[in-house]
């Protein structure tokens, strides 16, 4: 299953240390692991568990940020600016990659992290190591496209912060509770139609 989905910055942000990444959206599916398998028999308080979860997300964001930077540096490709309405082109131009998160970095078990970097932002999925990556990759692309479209992310607005319920809804449809769906185009259409109704309200 998918552990979490996040949207975060991969470029420099004013007031943020170099190498840091600002997390704009994150959804963690499932409980904080430390609740179920306490480390050294120490049961963490709910506050501590939440903090731990936030820190894990931040670690992933930093790792992806550095991976994106290295990958862009290596490819030497010039970033193509895309504007509102060019969401499909933005996805096609996006850099993508996948990496292993080793044990303890930051989860107890091994995980796989997939990222899609559109200009200054990355859309990131963390999955279990046995997950079907072809499916995850396709789902991530689809989710990213919908985020760009429904939150007008190629523009300069702040919908990603203020209308984050839209991301919640599109995740809930396309990847319910973190389950990747083998949905053919007809299933997807039906899910998307349902989603568009929500966005229209």
């Amino acid at each position, binding site marked *: 299953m998918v552990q979490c989905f996040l949207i975060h910055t991969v470029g420099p942000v004013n007031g943020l240390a170099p190498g840091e990444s600002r997390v704009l959206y994150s959804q963690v599916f499932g409980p904080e692991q430390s609740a179920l398998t306490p480390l050294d028999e120490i049961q963490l308080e709910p506050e501590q568990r939440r903090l731990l979860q936030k820190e894990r997300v931040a670690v992933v964001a930093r790792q992806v940020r550095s991976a994106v930077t290295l990958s862009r540096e290596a490819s030497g490709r010039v970033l193509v600016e895309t504007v509102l309405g060019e969401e499909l082109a933005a996805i096609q131009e996006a850099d993508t990659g996948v990496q292993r998160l080793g044990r303890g970095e930051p989860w107890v078990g091994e995980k796989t992290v997939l990222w899609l970097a559109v200009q200054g932002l990355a859309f990131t999925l963390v999955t279990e190591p046995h997950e079907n990556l072809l499916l995850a990759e396709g789902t991530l692309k689809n989710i990213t496209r919908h985020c760009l479209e429904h939150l007008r992310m190629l523009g300069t607005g702040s919908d990603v912060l203020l209308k984050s319920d839209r991301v919640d809804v599109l995740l809930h449809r396309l990847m319910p*509770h973190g389950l990747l769906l083998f949905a053919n185009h007809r299933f997807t259409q039906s899910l998307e139609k349902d989603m568009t109704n929500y966005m229209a309200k």
Partner: protein
Amino acid sequence: MYSAGTESLIKQARDIGEVDLHKFYSRISKQLTTREHSHDVIDSLQRLHLILASNKYSRRLPVELHRRLLSLCLSSSVEQLTVLTLAVLRETLPPSGPEQNYTLQDYCPLNSHAAALVISQAGCKGDLSALSSVLLRSLDGRAAEGPSLTPNLPLTQTIPLLNTIITYSPDSLSEDHVIVLSKKLVDWLRYASVQQGVSSSGGFFSSPRIRQLGTVAELDGSVCGDFFTVLCVSPSFSEDQWMNLYSFSLLRHWLITYHSGNEGNPSTDTAADGRLVLSFSLSHEDRSEVDGSVVSMVSATSSSSRVLPPKERLREKSLEYCQRLLEQSDRKALKRADADLQKACLVEAVCILDSVCLEDAGCVYRAFPCVKSLFGRLNSDLSYSRVLVPIAQFYLNHGETAAVDSECVWRCVWGVLPAECFNQPYLAYEMLSFIRANQLLLQNSVPLYTHYFPNLLKFLAWDSPSLVSDYIDVLPSLVTAGTALELLHSLLDLPCLTAALTLQLRSACLPLSDPGGRGLTSLEAFRSPVYRGLFLFLLRGEAGSGDTIDRLSMLHDLLLEASDWPRVIQSAQSVPVLLHVYFNTVTEVSDERLLAQLVLVMLERSSLLLNIPTYQEEIHRVFSYHLLRLCKLHPSVVVDQSRELLEFAGMTANVHSKEDLYTHVVWVLGEYLSVSSDTRCSVDLITSCFETLEAVLFEITFSGSPTPRIATSLLSTLAKLASRSHDLIPRVSLFLSKLRSGTVSWCHSEEDAVAVVTRGEELWSLLKLPSVALSVLTPPPLASASGWHRDANTALPVRLRTLTSLTYTDLKHTPLANTH
């Protein structure tokens, strides 16, 4: 995309004061009391979520507000309100306090969002078990204890929720639960209707009407040939078809979790029987492949499985489902998205078949022909490269049981894919995951694995930052006595391989006439027939065509301009750590002859490296470290290779360009060129070594300015050699005494001069007592092995320090004139 406005919103949300926040809370509470929730509520909840989410530390909401939000989340018919309240509640914590103990009851009637909230705030495994019981009861169609616990969520949502629960806590489901769900999965997977569902305006969340249209279609538009799968399309779907989708999406995880390894292994007798049947049925199946029959064979070959126990039955049905998917994937999809889904389904199907066969070897004879023909169909189509990796896993796990020769698979997976698809990050990742998970098996039972190491290194050369940690894990399995030397050269030339791969891609992308390629001398060289051999060697796929080439320095010259390409620099940065892994492994697999060759390669390659800033120094450092280790393990290597080591140590140029390595070579000579290390060590050898080093020392102190490190290591080595051949003592003592008289003008600082003079004095005093000098400078193995050194790299055992302190005090009273 990310604007200053967005950043300032986050700042505002973080900086909001307690007073303002409480005002905001009471405003929301007031808004929530009205019966009709206006747009303002939505707006307030969105802001509240932002405030809570952008803070690292959690805030607790006032008890009353929390209660209202939860009740809204459970009861609202407006989805946006449910979603927003859920989002807010996830970011906060349930109110704490003795009478504020939330139980599952408080989240009922349970809807999909509330269930997600329960999971996300679960504090122990018990919370998940309780939830899974509720979900399972609803699946089973039985009424829960008390109407309030009856969930109010669509059937489809139970599957993803259960998927989450079993990911985190598989034992939350009892054996009965597992059986119930296994039975359900069979029904949904295998017996979903093939009639089209009815289109309804509200999507699948609203209740479907009864009217049925025609049958569903295959992806190529033809009429559905067999039972329903996720690769069947229809304008709309019925609930059982949706359940089919959800069930298949869960299936592999379910099988891995509850069907692997826990139920006793079949006895050897039955396994042998299975193999007999197998060989018969394989030939049978092969014939049906040749017929090329289009009609689905899946249902036709389905055994009457009604009598099987639930788990076996699910396995049986999974196998049929996957076989059908493999058939369906051969159809030409009308939509691009569906073509991608076909590939994902192929991967999933092969993985499921693999786990089914691992569990029940009897299935191999039915699954293997399908996978084999799939491989036959796909192996020449690179767009299916990602499917080939799970096929390779299948062959690795079951090829032997099926008595099938897997060589063609390895030739494709390692011979072709890395060379053609080295720049695909996902394929690289999957390939490395596969190798990492199976490296022991591959090393021991698939000889082609190590044979293809030059190809496998291409993934690393292309994307070293994300793959280096995987290579650290798998490199030891590639190091064998047969590959060791060639692998060492390949690792050292990894940056060259990166450059060559870049050129290969550019050369393929840019037409010869393109101006983009001009000005790149390396690209012209790459295309020139004169240098073809060099590049072909670099880009070779298989081991065994020689360890390295003669004209390596020419190749380095051609690639000189690549030394500042970021990708090349990245790949160079990964080499030192991999070399450490390599040397740590190679000592375990090689004999003395091979180790001797490794020493030679180090000496030779120390000056034959691509000229990347700091790369050479890094490599020299690694060489130095491992030269010591190798010689310590096998001291006789030094006598064996004394000619080459002396040649290296005799070149004054090396003193300056490779100080690190040079110092270590000198130290190794002094330490191990002795009879106690190797009885073949003759006086002549010691003398010739002494003379070579003496000449270097004279030369560099006369005309250059050696660092104190070089000077002292040369001095120490000369003293060591002299202590083993007493004729040499006067010669070194003469030099040492000169030092004492202050001829160290080549030292840059006072501190350096003191260091050199002190070392000189110590050695000089020691050599005055030759027998003591021998026992100190060439200590018996016992003395050197027991950790008496303060510094592992200077062989002055504790005895030397004691003696020095004695002689040093003595010296103060001895007039200098007494010493020649």
